[in-house]
């Protein structure tokens, strides 16, 4: 009887902890909404999203330059990362001998473990001077090196491991029969990859990209260190920008002193979590389908 009781108590406790963990993402969103709703009573949602006026002391909270900053940096990062990750994961899944893969995969995993501050430091030490002294003069742009481009490159490197490891898995779920059929009709390896494997794995690759996107979208520290943090709507990749996560991180001091700022920043965090929520749910559902089909 005692054992049965232990069983009952243990399983109920585990259920409670599980329910808590599973609902955590909703708890976070709700708490942020609670805190953020105060600013919504004073400023209209339209002004918050599409006004460029960020004057917290006057009660004007326009997120537009920050949203644009985030979109520019993230979009640039994806433009850089997508082709590199696609080719790398095709190489790892289709071409690389297993020995080479055994060396490269742990290195890619290692890349995922590097803290964002170290990425940012590398950006400050290498990327920023490189852009200031070589790249910008080359194309005739004027910048001190802290710009959207620096943020985009750092972010791209940060999402490499996510996109590569997920899409490599996806490529490997494509069944070998399909490849053999393609070889049998005389296709080269690359033709097989291009017409058969890629077609089959395309949704999964998109899902991997979306996962990378949602990681890049909210990345804070590394971007904050190299992007310049000037609240303006960027018009070129050599402009400075000020992404939303960086705004939250930098406004800590003001949070305590100026009324409504904390509420506005909580709302900014809510925007981040909503966007990430939509994108990652979509990506995960696609991946889950692929996993089911492969089994």
């Amino acid at each position, binding site marked *: 009887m005692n054992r049965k009781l232990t069983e009952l108590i243990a399983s109920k406790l585990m259920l409670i902890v599980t329910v808590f963990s599973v609902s955590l993402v909703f708890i976070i969103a709700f708490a942020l909404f609670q805190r953020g709703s105060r600013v919504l009573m004073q400023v209209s949602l339209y002004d918050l999203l599409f006004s460029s006026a960020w004057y917290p002391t006057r009660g004007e909270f326009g997120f537009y330059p920050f949203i644009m900053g985030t979109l520019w940096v993230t979009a640039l990062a994806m433009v850089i990362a997508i082709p590199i*990750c*696609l080719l790398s994961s095709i190489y790892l899944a289709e071409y690389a001998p297993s020995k080479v893969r055994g060396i490269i995969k742990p290195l890619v995993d290692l890349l995922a473990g590097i*803290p964002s501050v170290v990425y940012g430091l590398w950006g400050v030490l290498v990327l920023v001077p490189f852009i200031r002294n070589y790249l910008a003069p080359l194309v005739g742009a004027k910048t001190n090196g802290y710009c959207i481009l620096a943020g985009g490159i750092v972010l791209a490197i940060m999402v490499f491991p996510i996109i590569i490891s997920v899409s490599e898995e996806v490529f490997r779920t494509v069944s070998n029969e399909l490849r053999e059929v393609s070889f049998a009709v005389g296709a080269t390896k*690359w033709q097989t990859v291009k017409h058969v494997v890629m077609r089959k794995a395309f949704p999964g690759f998109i899902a991997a990209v979306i996962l990378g996107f949602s990681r890049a979208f909210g990345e804070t520290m590394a971007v904050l260190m190299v992007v310049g943090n000037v609240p303006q709507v960027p018009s070129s990749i050599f402009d400075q920008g000020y992404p939303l996560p960086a705004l939250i991180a930098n406004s800590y001091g003001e949070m305590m002193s100026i009324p409504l700022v904390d509420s506005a920043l909580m709302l900014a965090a809510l925007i*981040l979590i909503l966007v990430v929520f939509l994108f*990652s749910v979509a990506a995960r559902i696609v991946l889950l389908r692929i996993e089911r089909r492969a089994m």
Partner: protein
Amino acid sequence: MDRRKLEEAIFKGLMFCSIFLVVGSLLTIIGVVLIKGLPALSIQMLTQIPQGGYYLGKEGGILNAIVGSLYLAGGATALAFVISLPVALYIEEYAGRSKLADFARLSLDVLWSVPSIVFGAFGFAIMTFLGMRASLLGGIVTVALLILPIMVRAMDEVVRMISFELKESSYALGATKFETVVKVVVRQALPGILTAVLLAFGRGIGDAASVLFTAGYTDRIPSSLFDPVATLPLAILFQLGTPFPEVQNRAYASAVVLTVIILTLSIVSRLLTKKLTKYVVR
């Protein structure tokens, strides 16, 4: 015929370039940090807390941040472990292939994607609600939530791999589900669980955005859970932000410390997995 071969060759070349870029960026990041940081690293950096005028280039070290980071990441990992293990076991062994298990995995994956600055903001919101100041405890709870999904999903993967026969034999001997889970499943999954813990610890010790609001910063080593605590990532950020080259050099040295910790964790977890999996029944 030739065109097809040419296309193959071109794309193969591009693939090599891509892989080279990916691996190369990893190596330059680690290389640059080591080259810049190692000359600035000294025993004093590792064994002293900042003295007066440290941020102007005077005496001292970053012991406060090293110890603070270890406290914070250690506490967060312990807390996250206590929550994660039951969750992973429940999802896998109790919920099985039900809708709840699918939903739980999806929800945890979404939580994994949530930016760390959002965790920081959430932690800050909860702490102001409770009237708490930035403290070790606040940081531990926030980072624990941040690494929770990483840990659960990593444990979930290993628990799933345990053979059905093993569990069946345990049931055949009359063990209850909980006894089976604790005495068979956990023991079998131990190497994987350890890897998950190390992975989460590494993520916790490297994250800056979540502790910015919640853990504060101090030049002292915290003596209670309610003291603010310094962390290595923030030490790097703040030292880099000063206009003095000597202090910036210390930021590079701090980055070496952090990077070495992360690399060691990753290597140890790899070795451990290899060593411990020898005793796992397949």
